């Protein structure tokens, strides 16, 4: 029974991935700019451009090109960049992806670490002074654009206090300590806005849960406040949060461009913008596909986690 559910899920996942990849492929082929111009530069004859286009296979029907590209992609070949220095797209992505993933995961982890206690304090005495303070704070943070927050963080922690470096990246292979040391400030920048969102969402759900009878029942058993918040209230309140985390993780991997720029980090955001600037559609295509796959897989995992969060759902699926 359970195996069938998993297989069904997997089937759905593959379907979604096919649709997403085709969508990506279509959109990119609609991108303005002629790849042939990107490759040869200005001032060549129409015949020369046409030859390049034919060479790239751009004259084939769209679907045929998609199938070809998909086949290659499945075997791990995302093609070669069409502009100098003609690097392998997969290699380039594998270089940038860990940076982005690490930033996103670290940022989310930090956000979770901050938002759990904040939301609990807020919800425990909803409407109280602390709750209003936290509410105002999260509103404030959400209204500050991330580049401004990033700049402030750099000014305080890197320039004034000198606790952390700016504008450097240290790969994980150079040692975990070094890596975390360099990743801290950018992750913190990302965490700020996420913390605000997580706190607000979790607070609202917690308030709903804390009004439930089973919370009163736990109280009437003499359970302490901490026990009630963590053991009774948190799990039933975390649906929206977990959903939001799934969306955030996908979003963060592809769109931490401002943070990457501020801290001069070689992540996916910079990769895509750079490639799009050069008209390197093969690179953009590959990068977007990888992000889409991660996004879909993460959200499928989130879906499965609902079953863990609420046993009633588990039964409905089986």
């Amino acid at each position, binding site marked *: 029974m359970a195996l069938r559910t998993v297989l069904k899920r997997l089937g759905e996942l593959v379907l979604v991935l096919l649709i997403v990849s085709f969508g990506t492929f279509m959109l990119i082929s609609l991108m303005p700019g002629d790849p042939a111009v990107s490759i040869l530069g200005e001032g060549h004859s129409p015949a020369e451009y046409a030859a390049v286009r034919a060479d790239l296979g751009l004259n084939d029907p769209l679907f045929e090109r998609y199938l070809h590209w998909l086949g290659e992609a499945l075997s791990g070949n995302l093609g070669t960049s069409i502009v100098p220095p003609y690097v392998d797209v997969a290699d380039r992505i594998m270089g940038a992806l860990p940076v982005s993933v690490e930033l996103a995961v670290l940022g989310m982890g930090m956000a979770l670490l901050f938002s759990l206690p904040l939301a609990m304090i807020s919800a425990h005495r909803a409407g109280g002074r602390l709750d209003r303070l936290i509410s105002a704070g999260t509103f404030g943070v959400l209204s500050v654009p991330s580049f401004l927050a990033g700049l402030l963080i750099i000014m305080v922690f890197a320039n004034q206090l000198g606790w952390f470096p700016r504008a450097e990246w240290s790969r994980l292979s150079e040692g975990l300590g070094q890596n975390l040391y360099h990743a801290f400030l950018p992750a913190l920048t990302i965490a700020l806005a996420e913390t605000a969102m997580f706190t607000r969402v979790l607070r609202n759900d917690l308030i709903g849960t804390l009004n439930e009878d089973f919370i009163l029942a736990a109280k009437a058993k003499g359970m302490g406040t901490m026990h009630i918040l963590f053991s009774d209230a948190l799990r039933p309140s975390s649906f929206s949060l977990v959903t939001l985390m799934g969306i955030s993780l996908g979003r963060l991997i592809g769109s931490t461009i401002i943070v990457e720029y501020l801290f001069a980090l070689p992540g996916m955001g910079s990769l895509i913008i750079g490639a799009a600037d050069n008209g390197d559609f093969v690179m953009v295509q590959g990068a977007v596909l990888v992000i889409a796959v991660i996004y879909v897989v993460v959200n499928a995992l989130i879906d499965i986690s609902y079953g863990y969060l609420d046993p009633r759902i588990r039964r409905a*699926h089986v």
Partner: protein
Amino acid sequence: MAGTGTLHLRESDQVLSVEELVVEFPAKGGGTVHAVSGISFDVVDGETLGILGESGCGKSSAGRALMQLPPPTAGSVRLQGAELTGTSRRELRGRRAGMQMIFQDPVSSLNPRRRVKDLVAEGPRTRGEKVDEARIREVLTAVGLDPDVVWDRRPHELSGGQCQRVCIARALMLDPELLICDEPVSSLDVSVQAQILNLLEETKRRYRLSMVFIAHDLAVVKNISDRIMVMYLGKVCEIVPSGALKESARHPYTRLLLESVPEAHLPGARDETSISATSAELPSPLDPPSGCRFRTRCPLATDVCASEEPRLRPAGEGHYVACHHADL
């Protein structure tokens, strides 16, 4: 307990006649919920039929199936001789107007944004009829509301009892022949419950209605009904004239219900030795027991109950019982 058999159906004067009604729907995790499994009953002109049963017995599913909301899986529902099941949507709308329904939770069955005057006029208006104010006032007065006071109110500005009165007024606007009441007083306080029960009796007399009254409270059902149909797990156990319920009911399930009722005016009158069902759980409607569906909780159950479904047999004037062992 069966409910198979049509011996109890009457010949003439039927406002509503229901034969072999089946309601099934897919369960969430697969399988089929057998909510109502082939029941037959009728309501004659001016009669109130009480449908009595505990949660999960199919009484509400049956009530909704009468209204074709949604249509039953199988069976026939005829109102004034006109078949409702399997008719086209447009025809159904015309035929169904003679049958109106009121529900358990009066507040949530009213659109919270509309005012009383519009709520009451809604039925005829959606049918494209013009509604004059005098008629709305007349019906509001008939249900015991002061039109001048409630005219512009919205549901949340009324009490639960007042909302139920509005629901009754809404139903009356369409000149129904049959009123189906699904637990109409179970969310109301005792003092308000009595008001609504009295109002339903008055309304029935005044507008010459027939009624199907679905509820779980024995005394309430007995008070308002002429005949009572006792349901268990989608089947009919017993059909008994209301006046004879307490003394003459024979089905072990009806007896169990009767003996479970705590009565306020008889303190200390608990009879410890009376029939008591084994505390076994209500079987799942996904996989109801074979034969008599009550047998898993019945103190009288024997082998025949598992193998053979009891049919409704006459047990007196207008009284039918579906049981192998209730001495008839």
